[in-house]
């Protein structure tokens, strides 16, 4: 029996021989020229379309592109169940498409339960993904801070006596008091239960002491309606247990750690506390080991990736800061600054990858001393499961452990000479972020980086060229190009976005941290089309998400960079393909902006 129809592909492989014959009897084949419409929006869906050859695109009302369909893809399942098609389907290139008429489709669904459930399941997954993918659709996130989460904020004047304050607190059942020191929101301070206790029992202050003397300032503040996650990260960063929630310039309540913890089922703060309280390297190491488990839990709970990345980098920074404290004598800590680079520096590290770090120290510290500390530092990190950087981007390497003036000199020469290895170091340095020591040393370097392009503009296109060095893994027909079921998402998808955003930011002197933030700022400054910036951000998140879920499912080493396309669902493959098209477009934009096509 000659047959072009691929019965091997899911879900058709679930059909029995008899059902296959039924299917064949209701099948027709259409040929469409580019631009021809297969289904008009609003029309009754008459058939399930299965692409044999060519590419068909799906466009929404305002001509917004939803998906591309290539060989073996099917559409419009949603329309078949709803009876009506919402979007327009148009052939992008010459396409040969099977059409299974709707009546037979429903009959097959009735006869064969696995067949039906395939479509219903993929529909649900698609809808979920579509909701995620949508432009301004609700954020994929847990809870926003609402009034019911809050403890009352009791405001008292600064000259209230200690005893009065304690009684007020007990009466209203408040955990802390807001003290009015001056006018306006900035004039508020906070006095916690612990402060009152310490004042009474430790410092033996009398009951009449005005409470204003105890108040802490400035307040740690989140807005009402912010994500709980923001509060969480703030607490983690500042190692505090409560934050003030405000609406406009009015404090509306206090958010306590226990509230947040009861709403979060994870233990990120517990972990942060363990890191903060660890006395020895061994204790730190045990804390570091739980980090991966935390990521897996968060990912499993469907928490949006950009929040996981934020939280994980906050924790990572603390960990590094602690190790730094263990390695560098206290007297010198404020005379140098440890910066991290690479994904960690951008705040995008999830699972532990190799360590990329550098040290900026004051001119009067001898480089031998600095190198000894850093060797200890790197050794300790290695013990924590952060592999050493094969490229030698580590603070224990003399090339990455320099005094401020040496660093400044290096930036200066890079702008003048523009040798490839200098430019490479520069683009690595672009991602630097201070995690420990005195940030002052870093900010002077950063200031110079932000004006680097004034002098180094002519080298920028050399640097940008790197973003185009790997081909986008798309075939000529717009399908996914894999090598043996694997698709190199890091080279083909992530790197162009990360590097492109980095170089554009360098050119504009925009010193923001992280690819997502860079894209946003680039969009705002008009360097990138706003639409393009949004799409790229979504794309970036999708790539990281796909990679993470496969890393979590399979080996955690992260060495096998390829993405196993066969393990993705059809909907995910759709999104992946569309995303790669976005990357391709971005590369063209880069090519234009830096005049790379003429080189």
């Amino acid at each position, binding site marked *: 029996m*000659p047959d072009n129809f691929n019965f091997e592909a899911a879900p058709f492989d679930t059909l029995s021989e008899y059902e296959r014959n039924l299917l064949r009897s*209701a099948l*027709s*084949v*259409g*040929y469409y*020229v580019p631009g021809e419409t297969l289904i008009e929006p609003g029309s009754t869906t008459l058939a399930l379309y299965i692409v044999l050859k060519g590419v068909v695109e799906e466009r929404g009302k305002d001509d917004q592109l939803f998906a591309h369909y290539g060989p073996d893809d099917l559409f419009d399942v949603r329309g078949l169940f709803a009876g009506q098609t919402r979007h327009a389907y148009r052939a992008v290139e*010459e396409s*040969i498409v099977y059409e299974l008429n709707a009546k037979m489709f429903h009959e097959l669904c009735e006869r064969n339960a696995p067949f039906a459930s395939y479509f219903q399941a993929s529909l649900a997954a698609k809808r979920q993904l579509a909701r995620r993918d949508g432009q301004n659709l609700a954020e994929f996130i847990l809870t926003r801070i609402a009034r019911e989460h809050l403890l009352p904020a009791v405001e008292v004047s600064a000259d209230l006596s200690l005893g009065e304050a304690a009684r007020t607190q007990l009466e209203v059942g408040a955990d802390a008091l807001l003290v009015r020191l001056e006018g306006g929101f900035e004039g508020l301070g906070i006095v916690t239960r612990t402060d009152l206790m310490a004042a009474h029992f430790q410092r033996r202050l009398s009951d009449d002491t005005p409470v204003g003397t105890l108040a802490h300032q400035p307040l740690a503040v989140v807005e009402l309606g912010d994500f709980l996650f923001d509060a969480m990260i703030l607490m983690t960063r500042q190692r505090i247990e409560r934050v003030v929630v405000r609406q406009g310039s009015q404090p509306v309540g206090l958010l306590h750690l226990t509230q947040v913890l009861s709403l979060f089922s994870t233990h990120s703060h517990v972990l942060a506390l363990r890191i903060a309280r660890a006395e020895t390297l061994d204790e730190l190491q045990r804390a570091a080991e739980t980090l991966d488990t935390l990521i897996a839990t968060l990912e499993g709970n469907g928490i949006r990736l950009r929040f996981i990345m934020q939280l994980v980098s906050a924790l990572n920074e603390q960990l590094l800061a602690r190790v730094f404290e263990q390695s560098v004598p206290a007297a010198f800590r404020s005379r140098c600054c440890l910066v991290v680079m690479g994904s960690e520096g951008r705040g995008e590290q999830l699972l532990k990858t190799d360590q990329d770090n550098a040290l900026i120290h004051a001119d009067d510290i001898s480089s031998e001393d600095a190198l000894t500390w850093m060797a200890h530092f790197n050794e300790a990190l290695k013990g924590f499961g952060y592999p050493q950087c094969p490229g030698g981007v580590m603070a224990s390497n003399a090339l990455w452990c320099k005094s401020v003036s040496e660093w400044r000199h290096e930036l200066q020469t890079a702008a003048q000479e523009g040798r490839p290895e200098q430019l490479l170091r520069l683009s690595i340095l672009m991602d630097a972020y201070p995690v420990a020591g005195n940030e002052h040393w870093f900010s002077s370097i950063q200031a110079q980086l932000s004006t680097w392009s004034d002098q180094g503009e002519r080298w920028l296109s050399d640097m940008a060229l790197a973003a185009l060095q790997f081909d986008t893994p798309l075939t000529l027909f717009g399908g996914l190009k894999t090598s043996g079921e694997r698709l190199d998402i890091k080279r083909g998808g992530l790197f162009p976005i990360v590097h492109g955003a980095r170089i554009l930011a360098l050119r504009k002197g925009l010193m923001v941290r992280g690819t997502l933030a860079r894209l946003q700022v680039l969009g705002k400054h008009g360097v990138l089309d706003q639409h393009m910036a949004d799409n790229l951000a979504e794309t970036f998140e999708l790539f990281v998400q796909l990679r993470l879920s496969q890393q979590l499912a399979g080996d955690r080493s992260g060495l096998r960079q390829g993405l196993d396309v066969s393990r993705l669902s059809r909907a995910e493959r759709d999104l992946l393909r569309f995303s790669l098209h976005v990357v391709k477009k971005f590369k063209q934009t880069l090519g234009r902006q830096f005049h790379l096509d003429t080189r």
Partner: protein
Amino acid sequence: MSVYISRPDLHWPLWRQRLHWWRHDPMKADEIISLDLETTSLDPRRADILSIGAVLIRQGKMLVGERLELYVEPPPSLDAESIRIHKLRRMDLEGQLNIREALEHLRGFIGNRPLLGYYVSFDIAVLNRHFRRYGMPRLTNPRIEVSALYHRKVSRLFPDVHLDLRFDTLSRALDIPVTGRHTALGDAQTVSLMFLKLLKGPVPKPY
């Protein structure tokens, strides 16, 4: 959207049916049958039918379900040489339809629709020889020759080119996936895809 020409009434006299197809292009008919035979030889005077494949094209779409695939009892002329091409052995054909029944089936399936094929005149000549043998009227359906269509379309753009009209070249130039080559139904399906593409698509680049 192009307008499709409906078929002439089956009961019209032959001259009127022919007049109808003279006035209208058979290529625009709303229903067309793509036809292919596997035979024992390439000489229409001696070739015997082994299998018949036909598929219906309705309004620019090939209906995979509306098809005919018939195998015929092995004729005595079935020899090793032709078996090499179509891979139908004597034992594969034992116990299949006898030729007369097959012809009747085919007749009922195609009716008076235009016939599409690759070197379709060969197939029709063979069929007509068989029809005559069994005292049935010959086929008077209008014909559509896919290679002529290809030739016309390509030579309009490349007038001087020497065109290779082999089946495989056509399918390659038109970028049609070929399955079931040298089976009657497979070839009929491939030809109908070629036809659809020639009808609507751009001018193919000749090989």
